[in-house]
């Protein structure tokens, strides 16, 4: 089982990988297909704006919602979009923690997919409020009405969960993007591009210390991402499960919504991967194997979903409850039954072709299955609302939902808006994490060089290394030794440290595994800080809920106790994640001393390649000079050794 096999082009170098991603962005003009798609996206966006404007003028009566089916398209679209949004951050984080090499090519655009889809999803509940301009009432803020949000309402949980998720996803995406912005800064042909990317990169210089911090924080955030993703879609599931309707009050809904979300999100990820691969000519880095692996995940999702459907049907029958059974009968024989059969075909039946290895190897087949399953998942969300609300306990309330033009217009409009956002993103920012590709290539090289054994050997011969960690740069301008490959840089770092040089650092295009050990950088203590920040935020929000619901604004709801810890915990959890995230980011910026656009090392010649394909050892020791360093690094073949001109 080799990791990177079939994921990178055979003769790839660090520079060519960066070029493959950055050049379509910086140097190539877009063709007609792009502008056609752009026009379609813009048109859709216009349609969305018009629909929203008309909604604000007329109210939700322009939709097909009625007194039976009060949720209609808006909530279905919300669940559909948040489902797509749910997968991106999850894919990126889970694959990072599971050390899956195929993550490198897909994580960036999956994260962006999350941001855009999540943001669009958030619009729908607001529009559905009826008085969207009062959406801020969902937030706890001091107000002259002396009102508090109702913490026991699933709508408030939604608000908290989506806000947390969007903020978190933004941070996670931004943190991964930061080094790539520096690469674009150093590679941009024009001054405007250099300036824009340069400011956004906050002065990232690929320092080994920064990479060390970055790596630690990024991993920690990935660990937070998994429970967060689960919680967000569980909250969406709770929107339904918390009501008393037959077919909704299911304890399996929270986990089942999570699975459904990942399923549809993976489907959208496949579609976007195929589009980007074709549109930006990324065949070298988004390969057939990526599609084959995602196809397996989709198949697994289809199976779990199918079993969930079975469980629902079976439990409805097993309960012996007339209404529960009536609900299942209505699924198969009611007003919407034909759509239900299409749903089952798209979500469960069609993906079964992916058992065949031939189908998995065909990108066309995988994309076709993904498109169908996205249709199926949209139907699923629509039907979960229609089927239940159209067929509730009271026969007098049975009624059918008929979508209006504005229902369709808003759905189509948001799809166009998503397309437009994505097209803009693909022209402005790298759709693939370049530093992750570099890391993947390095892993392959290291595996080829059997570096593992050497590492161990080195660890043995290291003389009293632990106590003598490389110290931060002093006042002296650093001497830079430039290398072509990271393994040599690690050797050089070992030698420099063993020779007792101080003020050691390195500048590299990605986090070189083993470099932090070679420089004896201390493990960043970001996790205790994040834990403290998270606990503090969680405690604050719990106290807030308790104070408002028990003391300041007691309101008995369905006979439930005022102190409903069961539901306060949901909000407390979200707050904890958010607190930990922001603590981590603040800690990172302070510890790394960023933003800092004027660092002396930027005066060095060719330092721009440190974000692309060169590896620099920096020595800021007053006792060191070029000649001594050259003697020390003899045999390692540095490309150049120069002192940075002050």
């Amino acid at each position: 089982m080799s990791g990177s096999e079939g994921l990178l082009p055979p003769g790839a170098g660090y520079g060519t990988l960066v070029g493959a991603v950055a050049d379509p962005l910086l140097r190539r003009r877009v063709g007609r297909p792009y502008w056609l798609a752009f026009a379609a996206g813009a048109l859709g966006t216009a349609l969305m704006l018009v629909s929203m404007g008309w909604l604000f003028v007329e109210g939700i009566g322009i939709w097909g919602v009625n007194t039976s089916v009060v949720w209609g398209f808006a909530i279905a679209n919300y669940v559909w979009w948040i489902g797509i949004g749910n997968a991106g951050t999850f894919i990126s984080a889970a694959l990072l923690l599971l050390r899956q090499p195929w993550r490198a090519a897909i994580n960036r655009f999956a994260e962006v997919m999350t941001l855009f889809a999540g943001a669009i999803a958030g619009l729908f509940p607001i529009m559905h409020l009826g008085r969207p301009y009062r959406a801020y009432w969902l937030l706890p803020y001091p107000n002259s009405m002396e009102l508090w949000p109702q913490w026991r309402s699933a709508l408030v949980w939604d608000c908290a969960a989506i806000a947390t998720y969007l903020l978190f996803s933004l941070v996670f995406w931004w943190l991964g993007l930061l080094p790539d912005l520096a690469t674009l800064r150093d590679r941009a042909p024009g001054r405007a591009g250099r300036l824009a990317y340069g400011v956004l990169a906050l002065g990232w210089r690929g320092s080994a210390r920064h990479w060390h911090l970055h790596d630690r924080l990024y991993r920690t955030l990935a660990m937070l991402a998994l429970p967060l993703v689960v919680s967000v879609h569980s909250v969406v599931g709770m929107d339904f499960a918390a009501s008393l309707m037959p077919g909704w009050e299911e304890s399996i809904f929270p986990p089942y919504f999570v699975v459904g979300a990942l399923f549809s999100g993976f489907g959208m990820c496949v579609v976007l991967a195929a589009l980007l691969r074709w549109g930006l000519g990324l065949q070298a880095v988004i390969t057939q194997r990526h599609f084959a692996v995602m196809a397996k995940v989709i198949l697994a999702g289809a199976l779990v979903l199918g079993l969930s459907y079975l469980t629902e049907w079976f439990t409805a029958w097993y309960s012996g409850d007339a209404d529960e059974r009536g609900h299942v009968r209505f699924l198969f024989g009611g007003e919407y039954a034909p759509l239900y059969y299409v749903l089952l075909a798209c979500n469960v039946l069609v993906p079964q072709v992916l058992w065949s290895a031939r189908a998995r190897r065909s990108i066309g087949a995988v994309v076709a299955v993904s498109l169908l399953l996205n249709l199926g998942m949209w139907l699923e969300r629509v039907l979960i609302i229609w089927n239940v609300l159209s067929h509730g306990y009271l026969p007098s309330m049975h009624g059918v939902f008929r979508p209006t033009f504005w229902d369709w217009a808003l759905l189509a409009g948001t799809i166009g808006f998503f397309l437009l956002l994505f097209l803009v993103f693909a022209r402005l920012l790298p759709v693939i994490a370049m530093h992750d590709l570099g890391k993947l290539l390095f892993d392959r090289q290291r595996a080829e060089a059997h570096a593992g054994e050497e590492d161990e050997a080195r660890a043995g011969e290291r003389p009293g290394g632990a106590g003598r960690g490389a110290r931060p740069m002093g006042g002296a301008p650093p001497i830079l030794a430039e290398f072509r490959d990271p393994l040599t840089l690690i050797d050089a770092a070992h030698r420099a440290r063993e020779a007792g040089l101080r003020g050691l650092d390195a500048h590299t295009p990605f986090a070189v595994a083993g470099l932090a050990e070679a420089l004896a950088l201390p493990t960043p203590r970001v996790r205790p800080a994040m834990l403290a920040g998270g606990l503090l935020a969680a405690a604050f929000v719990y106290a807030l809920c308790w104070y408002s619901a028990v003391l300041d604004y007691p309101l008995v709801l369905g006979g439930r106790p005022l102190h409903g810890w069961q539901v306060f915990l949901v909000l407390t959890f979200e707050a904890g994640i958010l607190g930990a995230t922001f603590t981590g980011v603040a800690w990172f910026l302070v510890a790394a001393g960023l933003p800092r656009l004027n660092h002396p090392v930027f005066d060095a010649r060719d330092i721009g390649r440190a974000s692309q394909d060169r590896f620099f050892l920096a020595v800021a020791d007053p006792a060191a000079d070029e000649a001594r360093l050259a003697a020390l690094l003899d045999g390692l073949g540095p490309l150049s050794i120069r002192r940075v001109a002050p």
Partner: protein
Amino acid sequence: MSRPPATRPGAGPGAAARPDGAPPGAWLRARAGRALLLGLAAAAALGLWALVAPAGPPAAGWLVGLAFWASVALGAVALLAVHALTGGRWGESLRPALAPAALGLPALLPLLLPLLLGLTALYPWAVDPGTAPAPDVARLYLNPAGFRLRTLLAWGVWCLLGWLMLRLRGGARAVAGALGLVFHLGAVTLVALDWLLSIDPHFQSTAFGVAALVMQMMAALAWAALLRPAVGREAGDLAALLFAAVLGALYLGFVQYLVAWYGDLPDKARWFLRREGAGWLALQGASFLLAALLPLVALLRPGTRRSPAALAGLGAAILAGFWAHLCWIVAPAFGASVLPAALLGVLAVGGIWLGLAYGPAGGWLLRRAESAPGEGAEGASDGRVARAPDDRVERLSGGRAEGLADG
């Protein structure tokens, strides 16, 4: 802090003295005979109890013991099947600990008999079909014949699956693992409903099956941690898996409670209310402390994650908490006397099962499963696949000899 003594052997002094590198379970293997005797004695005590007093509590105790050890074995099978699909270092390092448990499933078959023959002592619907949620449910599903058929059928497939997961290699193993997991999810949902939920036929929870599945994996991982298969970085993998499984089990448990609490419908609320009385709440509280809070907090420390000894301690705590959780589900229908019975049940089933699964018969099965290339493997690749299993057998049998010398 009640904890099942039967889980102690792995954490005992023998295991602590085990030199790193020896295969897990060697210490256990050496004591298989004594475990069998202990188990038989405990089983006899339970049998006697059932004869002289109402059979409900001892039967419930047996059910807890059975569910406990079946969870360990089924979790091992599921983990092996997951590994067949995903690959990864963790599977290789856990395999020596999981393999005997997965292969021990057939050894549980005779232990199922008291349950299958004693349905009337446990389940109201077995006495009076009128207590089932609906007449057709009693006729088609919730009846003694159906219960026995489902359990035995599932067991047959599970035994086969465990065997295949160890015997097959490569692509055939992946396909069998995928199909097996699909079956597993369905079968666990039904069997968990039959065994545990149908004690109160009017309570349903659609997530109960998934929760049982995750808890089984948690139990198997905790069992593996007790046996200390992993050293160095591999211990970190085990720690991460344990953390994820504990979190998953906690999540699924909380979600079921939250939905029932929020809905506040009579049948669902009643089930929880019956389990809320001071004593039962304390039991579940102990379970939460041992199987959720303690591991989650302890595993935040990097030192704990790297130390096989600390992980073994956590494994014991998680298993104890899991036992308490099973008691919390089963016991309130029968009263407090189920707790000692459940302790006896864990000892009885565990002792007999360990005696069989880790005894000579289990060892023979393990050697057969590991030694030859699977029937599913293509003839052409015979030479290639035969090598790896041979190494493993050497390690296992070598360790076995060591373990025997130890004891």
